[in-house]
């Protein structure tokens, strides 16, 4: 039963998703099932948060390597959940107005705040932490890519074969041809860059997309028919 019931559910849900395209009568049911999927995905996010909390609490309790970082993670997560979720729920349940606020004043001629404690919109403490902690930190991580790419380009990208040579030529033409300086260097570079993107790149990407789509259809049919069972996990 542990395998048969999930297989049956998968089969029924899968068929409804396909039948929707052929029989309008099935749309109501498939729509309902997709709404369930949205709710379950949201619950999965909550499970994800719970799992992160569990793993990091274990790490702290065992004093594993870098356990202090886990404390920072847990404290940050708890703080943001408190501001963004718990406070608005409390407010909503007990019909409290949204005037809980802290801070506010003037610094070097610039007025700031006060910042509302509850909620996630602009003008809240949550939003301040988002704007001045989360945004710069995540943007920094992404920006570091430019430096690693430069380092890899110099130290690792070696033209050892014809294929690597073709890759290098395409990379150079695209990189220079896609920026305004490329046209200043040679007016033909942007046109060649456009051609590479629209012809060889497109041919390869389209082949990959069509191949992946055919593979997805085949795998989908196998899952719906109960032939492919790996998604159920091991025994």
């Amino acid at each position, binding site marked *: 039963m542990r395998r048969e019931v999930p297989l049956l559910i998968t089969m029924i849900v899968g068929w409804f998703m396909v039948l929707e395209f052929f029989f309008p009568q099935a749309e109501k049911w498939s729509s309902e099932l997709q709404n369930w999927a949205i709710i379950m995905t*949201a619950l999965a996010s909550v499970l994800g948060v719970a799992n992160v909390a569990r793993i990091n609490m274990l790490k702290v309790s065992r004093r594993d390597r870098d356990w202090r970082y886990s404390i920072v993670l847990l404290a940050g997560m708890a703080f943001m959940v408190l501001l963004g979720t718990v406070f608005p729920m409390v407010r909503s349940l007990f019909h409290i107005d949204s005037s809980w606020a802290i801070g506010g004043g003037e610094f070097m001629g610039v007025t700031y705040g006060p910042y509302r404690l509850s909620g996630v919109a602009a003008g809240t403490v949550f939003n301040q932490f988002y704007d001045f902690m989360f945004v710069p930190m995540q943007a920094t991580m992404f920006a570091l890519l430019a430096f690693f790419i430069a380092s890899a380009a110099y130290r690792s990208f070696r*033209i050892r074969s014809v294929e690597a040579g073709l890759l290098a030529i395409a990379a150079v033409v695209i990189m220079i041809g896609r920026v305004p*300086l490329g046209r200043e260097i040679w007016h033909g570079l942007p046109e060649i860059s456009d051609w590479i993107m629209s012809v060889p790149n497109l041919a390869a990407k389209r082949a990959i997309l069509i191949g992946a789509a055919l593979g997805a259809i085949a795998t989908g049919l196998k899952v719906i028919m109960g032939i492919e069972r790996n998604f159920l996990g091991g025994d």
Partner: protein
Amino acid sequence: MAGSEPILERLEHADRRWIFLIMLVAITVPLFLRVDLPIRVSPEVKGFYAALEALEPGDIVYFAADYDPGSKPELDPMIKAALDHLCRKDVRIIAATLWPAGPPLLEAALDSIAMGRYHKTYGTDFVNLGFKEGKENVMVQLGKSFRAVYPNDYYGTPVGELPLLAAKNAAGGWAVDTFRDVKLLVNISAGYPGTKEWVQQVRTRYDIPIVSGCTAVSAPEDYAYIRSNQLSGLLGGLSGAAEYEKMIGVPGWGTVGMSAQSLGHVTIVVLILIGNVLYFLNRRRRKEAA
């Protein structure tokens, strides 16, 4: 010759911090010097512009801003330029995101352009539905009913209280509730879920035209949808944003960033060439020595 050998070897395996320093100089100096470079507009960007330009005042656009702070420097310029163009056209905007860290960025962009620059009214001229988990399922369900997927907006207000979504049609139904009531879907995408999924799930099923702005790294994949006419236009990376800013005549961070990006790209190309020249010189030297 013997004396130069270690120098070439050392250069080939130079400390990566020198490379980082060169890159830092290459991308920061042009930002301060503000070098203006002529920008050439590509056909995909013209397609994006034409799709927005064809909208009539009062039309409704679904604005899917699927990104997070990691892509903010690259995508914010095109989001602001697209919002500027939409507001200028007096188009009504339904904005939302499928990325959990996206809502505050979307809110800031709407506040800055729709409210700040064009003095549009929230709820009437534009709404922010915020984030909804569910990826492709949300896309498909939005084609059936906006209010079923988003009963409340980003601020917790029931969508029935927002004039834009509360209006009724002649038959007594909701005037704006599905993609059938929307003229265009504008998607700004940093990855998954994003442009590829919107095209696959929504474009043909609900027959709604889509234009996309995406990170430069995703652009090659989205070209397939341009040629198949499943995307009406495409802004690829910061250069796409700069081209679009030129089209609408509002230079922003896309245009400013072009000199930095130009020199950054040239630096990487020069590093590839130098790295390879050193590699081949050292290889030949080692062979001769052996």
